[in-house]
């Protein structure tokens, strides 16, 4: 499903350059549940952004479902994001002006068009049917993250990427979010890739990839 071959990423920082990734090789099968761990600044989020087609590598190849995507232009990348990838962010990233339902519906907007019925179903899957017309500010952190998960899964993407999904939540809400994500994986067979700081969360994944200084230092299969 996902194959990163010798990926490097260099950010220009004024006159100097900041090398974030130095030759990353990762292989993820379809339907896997994988955690990425590592200290701050190690390049975890950059890897997730590359896999999610939000960014392109400086060098190396990235195959998504057998297709080389590292050299595509921004329009083609946007299309892949719309069709293949569902994002869940640490800071939820809901639109504050829209209701929970409208936020979920937005997940379909750029991949086939809004569909209220599907959005309602997705919201029901995360157990928030009774909060459909609430705005994000009227919801708790855990509820907001559940709306974000509904937004990510509403278009049935083969790949869901979660960047520290529990980072802004208390442990009880965090536990809820993780069980929703893991059951999604178990029931729908989506490929789920999660960046996390918390070892007890990572341990619930099938495999843990450790990153340090822009390189994969070790892998551990649960």
């Amino acid at each position, binding site marked *: 499903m996902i194959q990163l071959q010798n990926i490097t990423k260099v950010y220009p920082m004024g006159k100097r350059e900041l090398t974030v990734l130095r030759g990353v090789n990762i292989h993820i099968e379809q339907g896997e549940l994988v955690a990425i761990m590592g200290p701050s600044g190690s390049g975890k989020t950059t890897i997730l952004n590359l896999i*999610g087609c*939000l960014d392109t590598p400086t060098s190396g190849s990235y195959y998504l479902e057998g297709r080389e995507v590292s050299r595509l232009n*921004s329009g083609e990348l*946007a299309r892949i994001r719309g069709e293949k990838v569902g994002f869940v962010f640490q800071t939820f990233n809901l639109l504050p002006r829209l209701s929970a339902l409208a936020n979920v519906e937005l997940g379909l907007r750029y991949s086939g068009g809004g569909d209220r019925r599907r959005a309602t179903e997705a919201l029901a899957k995360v157990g928030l049917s009774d909060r459909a017309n609430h705005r994000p500010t009227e919801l708790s952190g855990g509820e907001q993250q559940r709306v974000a998960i509904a937004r990510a899964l509403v278009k049935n993407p083969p790949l869901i990427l979660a960047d520290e999904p529990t980072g802004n939540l208390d442990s009880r809400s965090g536990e809820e979010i993780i069980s929703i994500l893991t059951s999604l994986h178990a029931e729908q067979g989506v490929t789920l890739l999660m960046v996390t700081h918390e070892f007890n969360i990572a341990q619930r994944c099938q495999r843990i990839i450790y990153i340090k200084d822009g390189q994969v230092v070790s892998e551990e299969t649960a």
Partner: protein
Amino acid sequence: MKRWFEPFSTAWVGVATHKLRSFLTILGIVIGVAAVITLMSIGRGAEAEIISRIESVGSDLITIRPGASIGFGGIRGAAGSTNTLTQEDAVAISEQVAYIDLVAPTYSKALQLVVGGENMNASVTGVPPQYQEVQNLEIANGAFFSDYEYQRGAKVVVLGSNVKETLFGEADPIGQQMRMGGNIVRVIGVLESKGAMMGSPDDAILIPLTAMQLMVAQPRTSQGERVVSSIALTVSDEEQADYVVDEITSLLRTRHRLGPNVDNDFSIMSMQEISDMLSETIGTMTLLLGAIAAISLLVGGIGVMNIMLVSVLERTREIGIRKALGARERDIWIQFLIEAALLTFAGGIIGVIAGWAVSYLVSTMGLMTTVVTADIVILAVSVSVGIGLFFGFYPAWNASRLNPIEALRYE
């Protein structure tokens, strides 16, 4: 939801979220459009009024006066003060120039009028009966003089409404007698008032030209022709007015024996020409006023651009989210462009309503006649949408080019 509708509803949410800000943003457009509509409607109204006044006189009218003209409105030497135009000229014109309907030579002279105790000195004009039709004169009371009265030189008079007012007040003047110079004349008709305008018939005192010739000595030229004050004529085909003017000019130059380097000793005014010139002048004025008003549209457009730039910055994170969800640059670009156009479109519509209301007020208060025409309304609204698209282009392009990762990280 239908797919094509989504960008519009998104843009509408963007506009509706900041109602006060959106309203203030479009205020410049509203004022600009309202000003354009009001000024243009006043200009069009003035134009329509002048044209209708000219048509009440008859746009087929051509007037020849003695004395050279220097362009529009300027006549060198007082008009009628030179003795160069004659009754024989009028005959020659009616016999030799094509497309002429009626010809009416006139001779005016100041005479003393006395009715009871009222006494005034006024210009009396001797005219043939066809003068009534040439000048489109309508009779309010009584009758115009007949061919028979003309032929026998009957001492009868038709008065303009102002003259009747001065001499007779509210009394019925028909059949009354009055002294004119050393003669007694009988009032047989009063003209319908046509309102204040140059050469208004309201001040006219008309008697048969034949009677005039009996009452006063009509001067003669050295060739023995009878001098007239003007020749009024109508053309049978208004399209041919220019041709008729040219023909009359060359005929009169020949008759007056003017050499090639000598200026005309007469001047010809056609109503068609005057009407064209007036509407052109008013049209230019209207356009100028409209252009000044359009400057505020431009200023309004810059305001829209400013707010759109702020809005893009403020919604950087939203743009990042949309991009993460699969929005292409084109989607973002269209979203902000539609939002800007929606703003200015709303401004245009409100401006049209406001401008319409103002010009309606202006005309109901009797200040000026106003005409709001569909072309101006359509123009104003499309120009405001155009302004939105033009000034929204750069902010929308800015938004579409944002890097999704940086946009998502934006606080």
